[in-house]
């Protein structure tokens, strides 16, 4: 068996499909609008896809251990408001506040994981509940956009190094780090084991509870990172900024071939999923399709993605 056929055989069908769709979108794009195929547009795309990338990374952790994180939107909002609110003119606070916010995200995720493990309640309900509490607290704190960050922090969202967007670069770095972690660390392998067969994982000496909690903490961390990104993009803390992102974070994960129920999924798949969906939105904007139809398309993509990778295993 030659090396090449071997590789293709082992590549997940999900990834093949995403690649095919991505190519299709690019080809259509070239014909539809001359500005679509420019380097400039692709660089912009990398800038735009950063937040979705962060969120999808977080959601991937939750999905891999067999759960789901519906508190992502609330954590985005909370960290967004917290960051802008804490700094609010006091530029010296910027870095401490950023660290604080990332720590907050991780801690919140940790709490999600802990509640899930300790009570045995389905993570869907747990994260829905904690999200509701967090969103409520944020809205109690402020109903209006609030706070500010120093001007230089906007570099995170808009800055370019040698023409390449910083945010896109940070996102790729995060994907690389997570990919290496999942592939080359014992803990990373354990994430797959716990999601794939919890009982077997336990009997193989894996501490399931720790792994689960860790996964939710990672999810919270990346949501907070996205929250910080949005501050840098708009300069204020918006108490509703995260609303659409809980659901948005799920689509690329599913499209990228992760199995809801756990134990299967690759980081490259998720990255391709993020890229494909951002590309699609980008294209739809160029050809002036209404946002509303974009929603329909998004819904259909989810259905097609999961209905194609039918899996006979138990549903969550």
């Amino acid at each position, binding site marked *: 068996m030659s090396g090449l056929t071997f590789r293709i055989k082992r590549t997940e069908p999900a990834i093949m499909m995403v690649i095919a769709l991505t190519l299709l979108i690019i080809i259509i794009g070239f014909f539809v609008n001359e500005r679509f195929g420019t380097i400039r547009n692709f660089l912009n795309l990398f800038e735009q896809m950063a937040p979705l990338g962060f969120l999808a990374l977080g959601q991937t952790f939750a999905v891999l251990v067999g759960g789901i994180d519906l508190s992502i939107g609330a954590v985005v909002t909370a960290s967004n408001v917290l960051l802008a609110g804490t700094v609010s003119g006091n530029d010296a606070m910027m870095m401490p506040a950023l660290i604080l916010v990332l720590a907050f995200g991780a801690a919140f995720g940790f709490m999600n994981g802990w509640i899930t493990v300790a009570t045995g309640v389905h993570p869907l309900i747990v994260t829905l509940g904690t999200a509701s509490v967090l969103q409520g607290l944020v809205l109690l704190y402020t109903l209006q956009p609030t706070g500010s960050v120093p001007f230089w922090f906007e570099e995170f969202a808009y800055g370019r190094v040698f023409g390449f967007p910083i945010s896109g670069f940070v996102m790729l770095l995060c994907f690389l780090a997570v990919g290496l972690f999942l592939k*080359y660390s*014992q803990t990373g392998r354990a994430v797959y084991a716990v999601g794939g*067969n919890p009982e077997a994982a336990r*009997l193989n000496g894996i501490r399931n509870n720790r792994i689960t909690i860790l996964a939710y903490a990672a999810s919270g961390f990346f949501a907070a990172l996205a929250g910080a990104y949005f501050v840098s993009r708009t300069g204020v803390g918006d108490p509703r900024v995260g609303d659409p992102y809980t659901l948005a974070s799920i689509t690329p994960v599913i499209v990228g071939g992760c199995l809801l129920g756990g*134990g299967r999924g690759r980081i490259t798949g998720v990255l391709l999923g993020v890229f494909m969906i951002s590309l699609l939105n980008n294209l739809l904007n160029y050809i002036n399709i209404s946002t509303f139809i974009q929603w329909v398309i998004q819904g259909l993509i989810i259905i097609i993605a999961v209905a194609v990778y039918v899996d006979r295993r138990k549903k969550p």
Partner: protein
Amino acid sequence: MIELNNITKTFPGVKSLDAVTFEAKAGEIHALLGENGAGKSTLIKTIAGAYIPEEGEIIFDGTTRNWESPKQAKDAGIHVIYQELMLFPELSVADNIFIGKEPRTRFGQIDYKQMHMQAREILDRLGHVLAPSETVKNLTVADQQMVEIAKALVGDTKLLVLDEPTAITSGREAAVLFERVNNLKEQGVCIIYISHRLEEIFEIADRVTVLKDGQYVGTKNITDIDKDRLVGMMVGRELSDIYPTKSKRADDVPVLTAHDLSLTPRVKSVSFELFPGEIVGLAGMVGSGRSEVAHALFGSMKRDAGSVTVNGAPYNTPTPKKSIELGIGFLTEDRKEQGLLPLLDAAANITAPGLGEISTNAIISRDKEFVIAENEIQRFAIAIPGPRSDVWNLSGGNQQKILFARWARVCHRVLILDEPTRGVDVGAKVEIYKMIRRLAGEGIAILVISSELQEVVGLSSRVLVMREGVMTGELSGQDVNEKAIMRLATLQDAA
């Protein structure tokens, strides 16, 4: 090496281990024997830290170690090969073999090159050709079993527990396994070996401990005991008291014929006939396609080919619903996953396949349901307060009787029983055998699927044997014995 003192472990409704004492030495192969439901699996899981006993102490390697998690037991050098496969279907063979024990480079990351090399070496030692990079879900069951065994050869194992490792492996692989196990023994590893096959025990074990109904019966040197006395220890009574007299055909016209039944890849062209009043055994290794034959007959799995007649009339597109209407019942193998309705009461459990019978105009009559259930509870002597009681906290035997009552009600032609006494104590077992015999006496054709050869031999007047999806033979009358069945099931001499 390991000592268990007065271990007690209870589950709702059952005392699974009752003050059990057990001890095994380094460098010995210690067989653990007992009927289904005797408490062997619970004992193993206690050793492995998967269950925490209510009472008693575990002494391992000279120190008292009351595990709180499987990880502690694992770290101490205990490895268990469970009967059920503990694999991760989406991960590779090498990943599975080394899970939690991956070789690492000096930077701390997993060394895949090393891991694949070691995996290949271990698989080679087991005499098995398997690509370490293959995803486990794509393997056959036998290959998956090999992966499970390979896991035991990683790292520093001091105590190795094998729970029926040869139940699904073929003769050649079993020979390799025995050789490996003997090597480990010589290296000073303590091995606890569980098997249903007594021949195997006499072949490799040094000592044997017998459990019965959750209690310790005794420990013997293998040289000090023979097969009959061992069986006596396991069941606690004479064999002739356990099995009823054999049934005879009530009619020479078959009630059900199956011709060239196929369910790819598990069943290949299987043909047989069932006669009224006759108990027929269906034997074979786990994975030989026994259960699939039953599913294909009953309609709960879709077969690819074959023709079936019931009472002479063709019955070729089976569904469970139609089968029930034709008077075919199917007591499935897995009581919890495929049988019991744990959230419903006994009456609802018993009447589930016959909702039409307890309703008028689609409205259920609680009274009718109650009366029917009450009758069945009496008929099968089920120890339960009443038809409205819960079923989840009953003993395994009584749960099984509930399901028996369920199927005995609807089937008037054929009853298929898949592992009818799994997880049931000896007392209930004898009762269930009597029930089976009684139903046969009423003229029902019965097909018993079982991995306990004794059971097949004790009950059936005719035995069909399968191997790897093919019917390898049919035994009847005096030819029905364990040795003959084993020979057909593995296609080699069991001696």
